[in-house]
């Protein structure tokens, strides 16, 4: 009998060794890593990958990181990682990983905090909570730029803006501590006025950030008329 041609298994979940194709310093404590994957498969914007580090004695550490890139970037994913001082995996990425390095990953995983083309869509991100929202925004710009979508993005200071060179008319920023010197837009925590300025008529809200940020933003979305089942949240655990 003729042997079948072996085909690559493409199911999510298998560990694979990715190669770091590029590293970008986004802010003083945030870097983006472009990874080339031998068993790449298309993800849904909002999904995450697991990353696993292994020491020579077999000790391992695992964390989950949201994908920042559009699934149209075939063969690669971008992970944007916030450096947590007392962490284990994020300091490794920041202090050790350079272009050409290899890292073990598996994914893409989880299919609730994902964008499947829902519109209008209000994205509310706090700090590095913007990462999975950026995957959504980037994908929408490339496939359906006409869909109503706004990003409301809360950051501390001018230097903390991730993806600064990509934020256009579809993004509304607010600075909670130190805005840029010439800033005339919003300052302070996200509030009713900022949500109203996003000017979206209902739809689905995607909210990501620390737990207190998400609690406050979810309450604002509900007050603005979003139905509870249309408010999807992703809260950071400690992902050091």
């Amino acid at each position: 009998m003729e042997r079948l041609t072996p085909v690559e298994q493409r199911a999510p979940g298998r560990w694979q060794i990715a190669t770091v194709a590029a590293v970008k310093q986004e802010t003083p404590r945030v870097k983006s890593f472009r990874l080339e994957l031998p068993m790449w498969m298309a993800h849904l914007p909002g999904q995450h990958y697991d990353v696993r580090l292994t020491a020579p004695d077999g000790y391992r550490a695992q964390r989950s990181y949201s994908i920042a890139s559009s699934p149209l970037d075939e063969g690669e994913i971008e992970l944007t990682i916030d450096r947590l001082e007392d962490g284990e995996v994020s300091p490794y990425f920041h202090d050790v990983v350079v272009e050409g390095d290899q890292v073990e990953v598996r994914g893409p995983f989880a299919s609730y905090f994902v964008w499947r083309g829902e519109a209008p869509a209000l994205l509310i991100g706090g700090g590095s909570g913007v990462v999975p929202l950026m995957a959504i925004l980037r994908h929408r710009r490339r496939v359906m730029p006409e869909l109503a979508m706004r990003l409301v993005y809360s950051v501390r200071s001018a230097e903390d803006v991730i993806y600064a060179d990509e934020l256009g008319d579809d993004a509304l920023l607010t600075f909670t501590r130190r805005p840029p010197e010439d800033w005339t837009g919003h300052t302070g925590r996200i509030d009713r006025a900022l949500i109203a300025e996003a000017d979206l008529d209902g739809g689905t809200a995607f909210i990501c950030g620390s737990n207190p940020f998400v609690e406050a933003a979810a309450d604002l979305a509900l007050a603005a008329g979003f139905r509870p089942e249309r408010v999807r949240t992703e809260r950071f655990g400690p992902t050091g």
Partner: protein
Amino acid sequence: MSDFVSRAFRGRRRTPEELADRLPPGQYNESGFPVLTAGPTPRIEPDEWGFRIDGMVGQEREWTWDEFHRLPFETVPCDIHCVTKWSKLGTSFGGVSVDTLLEGVEPQGEYAMAFSYGGYTTNLSLADITGGKAWVVTEHEGDPLPREHGGPARLLVPHLYFWKSAKWAAGLRVMDHDEPGFWELNGYHNRGDPWKEERYWSD
């Protein structure tokens, strides 16, 4: 097992040896109690809270907050393990054993769907929630269970990943077949045993 080694990785958050055997594979020790919820946090006051057992049972049961607190109350010391990789060791909850709640109910199926205020569901086999393995808890470390952690009451099934310990618990529906709940439909493992690292569908 892959023999891949991460260049120049030594590991800087190693768990002390006396705790290491309490950490399932891929987990790390976290002293805080992170919050993970897929949607807005429901607000349920104790006087509007109730817990029911229905579905394929000989006798449905339902308790108000006051009735629930007349049931035998247990303190449950335990370790909890979240699928997002953190574990919290040596914590405790207070509540009523599911064994107690099932007394006189006469379940006629082997499975249950836990359901919550806010619409969350998670599936469990009866074998995983009977025999002193599961509780409905209203206290954490001696204090009322905070709302963000599922207060006024959540399920506690510490031997499975913590998404099985449904927050804002409203009841258990006994079923004669297994059916995936919320996270089980969204990519996570049907059973979720942390010691077998059953995180995702493919595990």
